[in-house]
């Protein structure tokens, strides 16, 4: 089994201009001056840590013994029969806390320790990142404050309670659209206020440099494992790798290992919400244009006057008008194909994977499955889907939407 190694991480920097923290034109540090010192400090600490084998050894041990990595890949024969091609799932749903998010929060909490910061803040949409942050804070005895939109707290009550059980304070955000974008604004306001004592664990490959590259690096364990597992267990690389994209961390995590495999098609699936012809979607790469938001230049859902437009998705984790700057770059270069599926398609895929394979996917991950189910596939296709999280958190929401009573 491949593990985190310095060589692997360094290889990825071919994609990044470290001097400016840019991916092509995208990325950067568009923040109030107050935060510049913290970003420089974080970048410096990370640059030291990533060249320190003890750092990776400690992270590796935690990923193995605390998170339960490596996660398996699973062949799904009944879903495969339905789509007409071989489908394999990368099982990030089997991680401790039920999603890929903990790969990143563990890495960042180790960085926070190196900076002697004992207060941690985070934003959360679906609550998965909030739970993963609360988890590592409990594990390391750190104070934890999670900002979450009031609307998302309603949609994800179970996750809110999980965070509270682990000692975190969940702060409801009542401004704006009361979802992930506003929770991120509020977390940034907290950070500006408490920056000398507090580390902000951003949950996705978004925000100012160095966050997009360090979150990608911490999530790249998904792709490294999956690529080796495909070669070992299936005997070849997948023809297509599919992942859902909100901010885009699980997608960058799995794509990063396949970027140099030119024959492997990479597909990112955004949330088309109620449809691309409506305003109610979260397909930033499909329908947005470049803008500056939450600290970086990337594609952005915005109106003609540069005001950020509210996003919509049935999945709280994809309900975000921005997207990671590296995805913007991968879209422009054509290396990754970005598609979008609707709420309806995602709900159908949620039901299908549950019935056909006995696996309840997170509604976020259900978007990736829905795209694969959309068309009849060539029989020699070998499709690897990143199942980024489990769907237990979404059961009440799905019941509500489908008119079932619990």
């Amino acid at each position, binding site marked *: 089994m491949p593990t985190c190694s310095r060589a692997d991480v360094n290889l990825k920097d071919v994609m990044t201009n470290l001097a400016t923290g840019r991916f092509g034109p995208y990325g*950067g*540090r*568009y*923040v*109030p*001056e*107050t*935060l*510049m*010192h*913290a970003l*420089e400090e974080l970048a410096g600490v990370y640059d030291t840590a990533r060249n320190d084998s003890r750092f990776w050894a400690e992270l590796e041990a935690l990923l193995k013994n605390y998170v339960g990595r490596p996660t398996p890949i699973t062949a799904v024969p009944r879903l495969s029969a339905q789509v007409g091609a071989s489908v394999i799932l990368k099982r990030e749903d089997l991680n401790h806390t039920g999603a890929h998010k903990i790969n990143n929060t563990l890495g960042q909490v180790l960085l926070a320790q190196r900076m002697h910061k004992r207060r941690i803040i985070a934003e959360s949409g679906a609550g998965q990142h909030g739970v993963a942050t609360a988890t590592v804070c409990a594990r390391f005895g750190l104070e934890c404050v999670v900002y979450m939109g009031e609307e998302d707290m309603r949609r994800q009550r179970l996750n809110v309670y999980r965070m509270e059980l682990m000692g975190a304070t969940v702060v409801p955000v009542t*401004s*704006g659209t009361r979802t992930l*974008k*506003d929770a991120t*604004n509020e977390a*940034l*306001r907290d950070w*500006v*206020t*408490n*920056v*000398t004592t507090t580390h902000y664990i951003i949950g996705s490959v978004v925000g100012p440099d160095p966050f997009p590259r360090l979150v990608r690096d911490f999530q790249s364990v998904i792709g490294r494992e999956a690529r080796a597992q495909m070669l070992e267990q299936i005997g070849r690389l997948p023809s297509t790798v599919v992942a859902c994209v909100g901010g885009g961390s699980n997608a960058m995590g799995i794509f990063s290992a396949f970027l140099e495999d030119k024959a492997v098609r990479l597909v990112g699936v955004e949330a088309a919400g109620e449809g691309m012809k409506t305003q109610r979607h979260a397909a930033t790469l499909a329908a947005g244009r470049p*803008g*500056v*938001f*939450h*600290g970086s230049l990337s594609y*952005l859902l*915005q109106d*003609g*006057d*540069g*005001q*950020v437009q509210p996003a919509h998705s049935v999945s709280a984790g994809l309900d975000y008008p921005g997207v990671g700057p590296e995805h913007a770059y991968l879209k422009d270069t054509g290396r990754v194909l970005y598609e979008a599926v609707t709420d309806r398609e995602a709900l159908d895929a949620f039901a299908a994977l549950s019935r056909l394979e006995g696996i309840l996917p997170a509604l976020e991950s259900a978007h990736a499955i829905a795209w694969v189910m959309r068309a009849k596939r060539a029989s020699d296709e070998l499709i690897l889907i990143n199942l980024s999280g489990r769907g237990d958190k979404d059961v009440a929401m799905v019941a509500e939407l489908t008119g079932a009573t619990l």
Partner: protein
Amino acid sequence: MSEPASSIKARWRALGTSRALIPYLTAGFPDFTRSLEAIRAVAAAGADFVEVGVPFSDPLADGPTIQRTTQAALEQGMTVPRVLELVRKADSPIPIIIMTYLNPVLSFGMPRFVEAARAAGAAGVLLTDLPAGADPAVEQTVRDSALDLIRLVAPTTDDRRLETAVSGATGFVYLISRLGVTGARDTVPADLDAQVRRIRAVTRLPVAVGFGISTPAQAAAAARAADGVVVGSALLDALAQDGVAGLERLTRDLAAAVHG
């Protein structure tokens, strides 16, 4: 269009050793007409410069008051072209500095914006989320224009970064007096003197201090340390509660405190 290029510099020169009061007003709050009256009112009540804020949907450096005024202005249909119209119609006797998050002006087009802002009569621009060095192309566009580029310095700006932070700055340097977002606080930081001295060591530009200053007593204390005092949220609260007359009253009291 009453002020020539580098009107900010000229204004400081005219002030001599006197301190400056710099109100911040959200463009389009509570509506276009009263926003126009508000700019004229602060000028009439003794302000020396005025910052006019472009409303943005995600004001992450701002506290509750400016979040509210921003939201209200957006609901009134405020846009970058309307802000420029407001500046032009204000025909202000004191220099106007447009304060904005980057995205609305980036969307409008940076070269087009600096030209239109200058044509509308603005004297300077302050970009909340563009720290020095973050985007050389955008900074160059402002520098090539007739607008002054007002730079921010924070308590966290360390000595190593300080020179970068003020490089290319013109007009004055805006010192964020404390960590945090905009909005009224109880006291002026005890180390304000030292913070101002630190900036004076690297630039000859005047230093204005802002963030959290709301009462005449606080403004007077800040004016003892710095060349200028910025007051935003407190004035917007007065405007929201007591209308333009209330705004004018508080501005008069603040001006008296700052001018000494």
